[in-house]
């Protein structure tokens, strides 16, 4: 079930109308009524009137009618990968993702919408309509979201894929039923929220239901169960809401680029291994958020990139701090006088360490090199950092600050390259410019000022889920 090059992910989304009646004083009746309604929905999903529409295509499939389709060359035995040729691809530009053919981890996602056919084949002897009044009761009506994914080989038949999708829908309804019953408060039903998390191999994409009225901090025991179930170490979050998998066709609402390094070709060093940041960060740089920090804000931007990593891995819930908030944190920590706030003063690795501690409760290690040429010898330490902590590293020295996202290092030859994210970029969120002009790129040891001294801030990953 792990994602690999020949795999395709099918994702079906839509909604189902949930409706039941409760007697407010009778808890058992309420539970039975809710379970019955979920059962009705599980039956509904197997009805002949259920239709899948392949998004952005003229293909409509009836999964419970042997995959009858609106397009001639699509049937139950057609390989599911063939569906792609019916899809009209949208052309995103600007801040969207441009798929280069050689990008690693290309995830093919085929999105489907759940629809209901209201027309029936019969033309005569139709049972004429009637109107029926139901007496007053405590009615619970909710539109339940559905969002199921399966991963499959591209040559698997459409018939099998549809069967699996229907099975996944039923499973998700059962998960929602469990969560709802567990977290009912009187006659109030929690709204189920659906998340998908990308777990390390061999698990792949996994779906989880959370009750909307319970925060992450209160769901720790549930997450512990999930960690056990999927045999994951309990030292990093995988199942916090912030860890939700971002599908390739869903642009990030905040407009920041995510992981531009994934679009680069990695260097071809003999005997070298790659040690990269683990997880998702956003690219923060000069001039963003309508703040003109050209010339002094580079360390602030690197710090923002680091904070974004902690937020998106689910370690913290607070948003990425602004320049002012960073400065205020330094004042609050006693590191700077009050007049610091609102100034255009440069900060260094020590300040980055203080702010990470003050705002995010994150400790960091400081690495010092007395001259830039020494950085070439720090391969092992940096490699270890990326392997165990996996956090982005802020480096300050000379008059510049940068973010190190990884190293390519050969233990035998000692050769090294650094994956650098440059906060000095002043342009827009244009992935092509950023990757082609080296604003995110691999640099050699000569990138550093060989005489200047450098401080590196290496944030430590908290051990929690």
């Amino acid at each position, binding site marked *: 079930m792990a994602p690999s090059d020949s795999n395709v992910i099918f994702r079906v989304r839509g909604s189902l109308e949930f409706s039941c009646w409760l007697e407010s004083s009778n808890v058992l009746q309420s539970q039975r009524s809710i379970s019955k309604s979920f059962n009705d929905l599980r039956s509904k999903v197997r009805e002949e009137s259920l239709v899948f529409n392949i998004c952005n295509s003229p293909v409509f499939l009836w999964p419970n009618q042997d995959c009858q389709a609106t397009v001639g060359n699509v049937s139950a035995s057609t390989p599911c990968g063939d569906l792609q040729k019916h899809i009209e691809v949208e052309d995103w530009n600007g801040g969207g993702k441009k798929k280069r053919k050689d990008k690693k981890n290309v995830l093919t996602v085929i999105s489907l919408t759940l629809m209901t056919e209201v027309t*029936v084949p019969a033309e005569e002897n*139709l049972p*004429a309509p009637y109107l029926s*009044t139901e*007496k007053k009761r405590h009615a619970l009506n909710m539109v339940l979201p559905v969002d199921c994914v399966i991963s499959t080989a591209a040559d698997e038949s459409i018939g099998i894929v549809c069967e699996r999708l229907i099975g996944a829908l039923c499973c998700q309804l059962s998960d929602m039923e469990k969560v709802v019953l567990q977290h009912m*408060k009187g006659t*109030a039903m929690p*709204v189920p929220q659906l998340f998908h998390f990308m777990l390390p191999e061999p698990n792949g994409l996994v779906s989880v239901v959370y009750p909307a009225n319970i925060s992450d901090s209160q769901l720790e025991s549930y997450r512990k169960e999930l960690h056990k179930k999927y045999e994951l170490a309990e030292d990093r979050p995988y199942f916090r809401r912030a860890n939700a998998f971002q599908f390739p066709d869903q642009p990030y609402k905040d407009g920041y680029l995510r992981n531009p390094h994934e679009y680069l070709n990695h260097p071809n060093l003999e005997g070298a291994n790659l040690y990269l940041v683990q997880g998702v960060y956003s690219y923060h740089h000069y001039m963003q958020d309508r703040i003109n920090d050209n010339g002094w804000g580079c360390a602030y931007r690197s710090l923002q990139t680091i904070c974004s990593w902690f937020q998106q891995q689910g370690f913290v819930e607070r948003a990425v701090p602004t320049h002012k908030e960073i400065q205020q944190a330094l004042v609050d920590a006693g590191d700077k006088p009050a007049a610091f706030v609102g100034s255009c003063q440069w900060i260094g690795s020590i300040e980055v360490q203080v702010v990470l501690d003050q705002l995010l409760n994150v400790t960091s290690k400081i690495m010092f090199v007395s001259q830039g040429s020494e950085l070439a010898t720090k391969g092992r330490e940096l490699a270890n950092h990326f392997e165990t902590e996996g956090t982005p590293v802020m480096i300050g020295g000379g008059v510049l600050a940068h973010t190190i996202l990884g190293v390519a290092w050969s233990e035998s030859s000692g050769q090294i390259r650094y994956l650098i994210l440059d906060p000095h970029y002043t342009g827009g969120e244009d992935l092509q410019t950023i990757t082609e002009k080296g604003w995110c790129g691999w640099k050699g040891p000569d990138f550093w000022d060989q005489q200047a001294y450098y401080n590196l801030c290496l944030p430590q990953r908290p051990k929690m889920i």
Partner: protein
Amino acid sequence: MGRGYVVEAVLEKYFSNLEAGTAAFTTGLLIGQSSPQRDFVVLSTKTPQRGTEGSSGSLEDVDTEWVTEHAKQVSRMLPGGLSVLGVFLIVLPELSKEAMNVLRKLVFAVDKYLSKGRLWDDTYEDATERVALQICSKTRKVVCKTFDVKDPKSSAKPADWKYQNGVSFNWPVVTCSVGLNLHLPVSDRSSEDKHKCIKEGLQRWAKRIIASTCLINGKVMAQEAELVTGSKKSPKLSQQKLQAQVLLPPTECQPELSSSVAAQPSASVLIRGQVSCRAYLHSNKPKAGQAMEAIKRDIMNTVSCRVDMLFDDFFMNQAEERGAVEGQQSLPLRVFAPVPEAGFCVCDYMFPGESVSEAAEHFQEMLDCSITEESIISGLEVCRVEPPTPTPAHDTGVSREEASSHLQMEAPKDVPKKQRSLGYFVGAAVAGGVALLAAVTSLLYLGE
């Protein structure tokens, strides 16, 4: 550059017969279909008699309320694609000066009344011009004008009126059968409130129908694609029948308004069953998008009008103390009937226990159309629910005289339970509540 009206030749004879009458004026409705380039008029029907016309010979006797109620009843009998396109007025030469003013008033009143209570709104593609046809009963001269009903200051624009044979032959027809399984929360304070809640629920359902995907003959078609392919040169082409399938998109989940939903005490109404739907397209290069819109509108209209009929019937019979609309009630069944010498069907609704003979009478009264009982297609929908226990009056046959005595506005005790003549409906409007009464009243005050 006015609109062009292509009119079924049979209508010329219909007007001749009316012109030969002795009345000072005759009003009536023009029925047909609009297309972007021109309109097709395929049926006309004079306004039914209301009581004994104590005709003063003046146009002040034109009964706007009666004409609009007639238009509403007629529009319930039209499948998708067809609608009331305008009004005609046959007048003596002495009255011709005022005629166009009267027509203007009628055209606006009819459009306003028909738009009320509809589950869908006109789109920008819908024609807003309605036709006003003035005919001189002596000279038979025809003056054809249009008014833009969306512009209250609209003046009469000239339009072409041209007779042609076989206008509606070879009109393509789109059909489907729709399953209903609606669950609507309602207030049970009163039947008026319940009706209002049901209408609101139907409006939400209608939004989904409008947003739905419509397949034609099992395929996705582009809105602009031409519906009828193949050569149109052969005049004996059989009518093209198209099957529609309607796929509803998922209901939108409320964007996390609240993190939990509490049970609310509420009564609810279920509407279940299957309805037969049909829409006609014109023969002037109709587009797939028009077909989809026409069949969707027919679906919405047929459900809405049956619910209205149930409540109209209830309000009319309130005097007989039948109590609230409760329990399980059958909605009327739909029957279709081909119009003689034309290429389309009209439809009617029958409550369980009614027979096709009543439908035939209804066609005669409302559409001035002689349709035989045998030609009425009545097996499409079948009532599965036992009709409610008939009142004693129901069992007595309706004599011809009683059937034609639809003159009273109040509900006399010996009127059979489900009589559906025009007077009956105007009575229902009066009895049915403030809202309807206000609507009728406001129409009477329509000024220039």
